[in-house]
């Protein structure tokens, strides 16, 4: 049967990208002085897997590059060579090249073969150097085997015969039907790499070829080299016998001139290991006497080898079961989530979220209608409705969780950014990440990456000082940048902090004055720090290509705000800076309390509400010229009258006749004065900006059960506004 391999390309591409990312992570984690063998193995495995796939699917450029990677990595993990930082650099560059090649095969751009060749050369040089410096014996047979497997790669080492591989001479006969002259030339070239090649019928005019090859490689390698080009049906390889090549040549596996492999495995059991029913098609084979081997499944007597194998197999029982235990422990750590996950396109998920959103609205509509019916007479209808509500909520929660991704997806790119940039700026920086498993909506994950990159680069460029300066200030030479993510209330907070120089208040103020910004010396630190978000603001003395052009922080702030988030700065001169970004957990649905003012209904996000109460008239105080405050449990809170903000005619104007909703945002509290509370809803957020325009104090809108539009209050903005009034 024929299989169209192309249908597996996409899986291979995805898989390779993941492997490359994993490889990079391990590389960046690798400590040059004491490399972790597990990491080296993981890197090797990644290269190995990509190579295997690339070979199967015929992406030869990737096979070459991964082969070079693998060769060097193999030496590293076998301890034949010490890890050096230039190797890590070369590995990273190789990873980049493979990424490009991958993109090329995907039809997205073109890999530069010159760059690939350069990196290949570099890797080769590094792995060859090893051989010179190495005290340990050079690699065993594996090397030549591998190089013939990837016959595009020229490896001189491959031709060095190892002491236990006997020199073999093969006679090769094949028909070149359907093979182009160029391919044949290429084939001969490859065969010459295996050993001394002699054409036994040089004046040949027909399609049939007869060659003699003296090589240190085994028959299988020769077969593989040829089978790439020649139809195996037309190919015959035998051991060469000098006297009369054709007549007395024996089939390889029965003769004495076998490779070491076949010899050792088939010794004393040659008759059992009959290839009679197998065409000589290496690339696979069976072990004589092995369980269920096709030729002699029920042969009772087995070769000494096999007997020994079984004995040791059982003798080792105890130790291997303990090994087994330890490996299953590892299993828990690196759980293979692959088996229990599927790939789904994001469009499908979004569609589902939209549909659930509509369902939530429909459910609300129904609930509103049903509420008009007598609960006693329509008991079943009411209980059905409450069940529907519960199920809708559960469904919505699980659908929303599909979109949630751990923030490690973003964090994982920074080790490389920091490494490259630190090298460029000649600074020593360590990157720490905390709370990588904090989950965030996929939409936010994608949008947060760029602003966060900017902040990390800023920290590195402006924050962290060079080692000498740090030492002078009594700090460790290594600067530290910490990325931290955690949940707080209904938000997710992402912090970028560094232990660098901190923001210089005087410098920022001076710069602001120079630019004609309205500043004065009595401003709070918060206000001063906020100045760096002004467009075109930069205090960098030197403009570098990293940062300092003042393009950026305003963009960062705008991006964060467009996600419904806030950005805050804390800084201490000489001690460091911490920038925190606060984002809503999800973009689509929110739990809200509906309140009325006059004829209008508003939604207050539930996350911000601490309590609702009807105040006693005595608790309301008027602070002259600064509005009203209410005393709640000994605390005086500013009263924010919603009807005043939106210029509405309320049903009640006396605070003690209405309801106060106590809001808490950014550590500040305020009391929102409304006419009445209606109920708790889950509402689907519809953007007001994209459908109308941005309205101060409103973060969005939703459609209520009765089909009316209700505005969702921007609680944080309302609370902050109330603070500014009374400060």
């Amino acid at each position, binding site marked *: *049967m*024929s*299989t169209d*391999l192309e*249908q*597996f390309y996409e*899986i*291979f591409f*995805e*898989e390779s990208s993941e492997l490359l990312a994993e490889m990079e992570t391990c590389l960046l984690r690798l400590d040059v002085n004491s490399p972790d063998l597990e990491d080296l193995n*993981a890197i090797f*495995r990644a290269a190995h*897997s990509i*190579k*295997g*796939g690339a*070979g*199967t*699917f015929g992406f030869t450029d990737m096979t070459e590059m991964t082969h070079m990677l693998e060769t060097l990595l193999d030496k590293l993990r076998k301890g034949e060579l010490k890890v050096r930082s230039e190797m890590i650099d070369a590995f990273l560059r190789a990873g980049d090249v493979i990424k490009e090649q991958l993109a090329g095969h995907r039809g997205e751009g073109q890999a530069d073969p010159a760059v690939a060749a350069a990196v290949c050369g570099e890797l080769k040089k590094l792995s060859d150097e090893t051989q010179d410096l190495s005290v340990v014996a050079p690699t*065993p*047979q*594996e090397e030549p*085997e*591998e190089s013939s*497997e990837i016959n595009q790669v020229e490896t001189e080492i491959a031709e060095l015969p190892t002491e236990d591989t006997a020199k073999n001479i093969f006679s090769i006969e094949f028909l070149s039907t359907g093979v182009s002259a160029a391919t044949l030339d290429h084939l001969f070239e490859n065969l010459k790499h295996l050993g001394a090649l002699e054409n036994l019928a040089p004046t040949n005019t027909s399609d049939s070829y007869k060659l003699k090859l003296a090589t240190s490689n*085994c028959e299988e390698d020769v077969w*593989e080299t040829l089978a790439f080009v020649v139809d195996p049906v037309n190919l015959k390889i035998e051991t060469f016998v000098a006297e009369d090549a054709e007549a007395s040549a024996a089939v390889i596996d029965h003769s004495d001139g076998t*490779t070491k*492999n076949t010899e*050792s*495995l088939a010794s004393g059991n040659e008759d059992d290991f009959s290839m009679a*029913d*197998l065409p000589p*098609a*290496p*690339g*696979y*084979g069976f*072990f004589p006497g*092995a*369980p*269920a*081997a*096709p030729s002699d*499944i029920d042969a009772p007597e087995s070769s000494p*080898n096999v007997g020994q*194998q079984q004995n*040791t*197999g*059982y003798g080792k*029982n105890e130790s*291997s079961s303990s*090994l087994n235990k330890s*490996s*299953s422990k*590892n*299993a828990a750590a*690196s759980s293979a989530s*692959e*088996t229990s996950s599927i790939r789904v396109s994001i469009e499908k998920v979004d569609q589902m979220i939209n549909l659930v959103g509509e369902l939530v609205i429909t459910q609300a509509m129904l609930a509103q209608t049903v509420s008009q019916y007598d609960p006693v007479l329509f008991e079943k209808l009411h209980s059905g409705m409450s069940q529907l509500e519960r199920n809708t909520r559960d469904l919505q929660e699980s659908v929303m969780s599909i979109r949630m991704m751990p923030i490690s997806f973003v964090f994982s790119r920074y080790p490389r950014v920091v490494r490259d940039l630190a090298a460029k700026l000649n600074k020593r920086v360590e990157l720490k990440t905390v709370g990588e498993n904090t989950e965030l909506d996929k939409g936010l994950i994608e949008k947060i990456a760029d602003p966060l990159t900017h902040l990390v680069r800023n920290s590195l460029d402006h924050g962290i000082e060079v080692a000498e300066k740090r030492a002078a200030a009594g700090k460790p030479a290594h600067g530290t940048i910490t990325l931290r993510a955690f949940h707080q209330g209904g938000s997710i907070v992402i912090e970028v902090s560094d232990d660098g120089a901190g923001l210089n208040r005087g410098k920022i103020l001076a710069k602001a004055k120079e630019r004609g910004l309205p500043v004065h010396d009595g401003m709070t630190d918060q206000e001063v720090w906020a100045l760096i978000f002004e467009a075109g603001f930069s205090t960098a003395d030197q403009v570098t290509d990293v940062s300092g052009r003042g393009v950026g922080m305003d963009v960062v702030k705008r991006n964060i705000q467009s996600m419904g988030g806030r950005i805050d700065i804390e800084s201490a001169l000489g001690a460091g800076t911490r920038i925190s970004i606060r984002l809503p957990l999800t973009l689509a649905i929110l739990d809200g309390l509906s309140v009325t003012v006059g004829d209008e209904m508003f939604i207050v996000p539930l996350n911000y509400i601490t309590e609702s109460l009807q105040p006693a008239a005595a608790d309301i105080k008027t602070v002259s010229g600064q509005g009203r405050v209410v005393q709640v449990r000994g605390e005086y809170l500013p009263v924010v009258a919603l009807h005043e903000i939106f210029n509405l005619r309320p049903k009640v104007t006396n605070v003690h006749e209405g309801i106060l909703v106590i809001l808490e945002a950014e550590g500040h509290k305020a009391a929102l004065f409304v006419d009445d509370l209606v109920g708790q809803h889950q509402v689907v957020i519809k953007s007001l900006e994209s459908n109308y325009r941005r309205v101060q104090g409103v973060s969005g809108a939703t459609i209520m059960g009765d089909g009316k539009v209700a505005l969702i209050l921007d609680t944080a903005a309302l609370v902050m506004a109330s603070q500014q009034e009374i400060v």
Partner: protein
Amino acid sequence: MVKTILAVDDSASIRQMVTFTLKGAGYEVIQAVDGQDALDKANYHQVNLVLTDINMPRMDGLKLLELLRKLANYKNIPILILTTESGDEMKAKGRAAGATGWLVKPFDPKRLLEVIGKVIG
């Protein structure tokens, strides 16, 4: 009766290619992502053949072989090792661990079916 094959490879693309090929030829296929996974699955299913990669995280193919051969119902089941390492060393190791035979990667679907056909018909 439909023959069942346990296909073990940490590479999803290879695994799916193998699965597709084998299913197309009328075999039932159980997939496993590494040795540990395969061992777990072998405990729950009786298969007619195991096809395993060597170089895998958690538990490699050799360890899997060794452990499978200790299970009474896997003692005589054909186990083929599927590996890019065509070296004699690897084959000897595979044999010592109890492999029935080997198949070199990269391979094409035709060759895979051919070798499997020889073992379980």
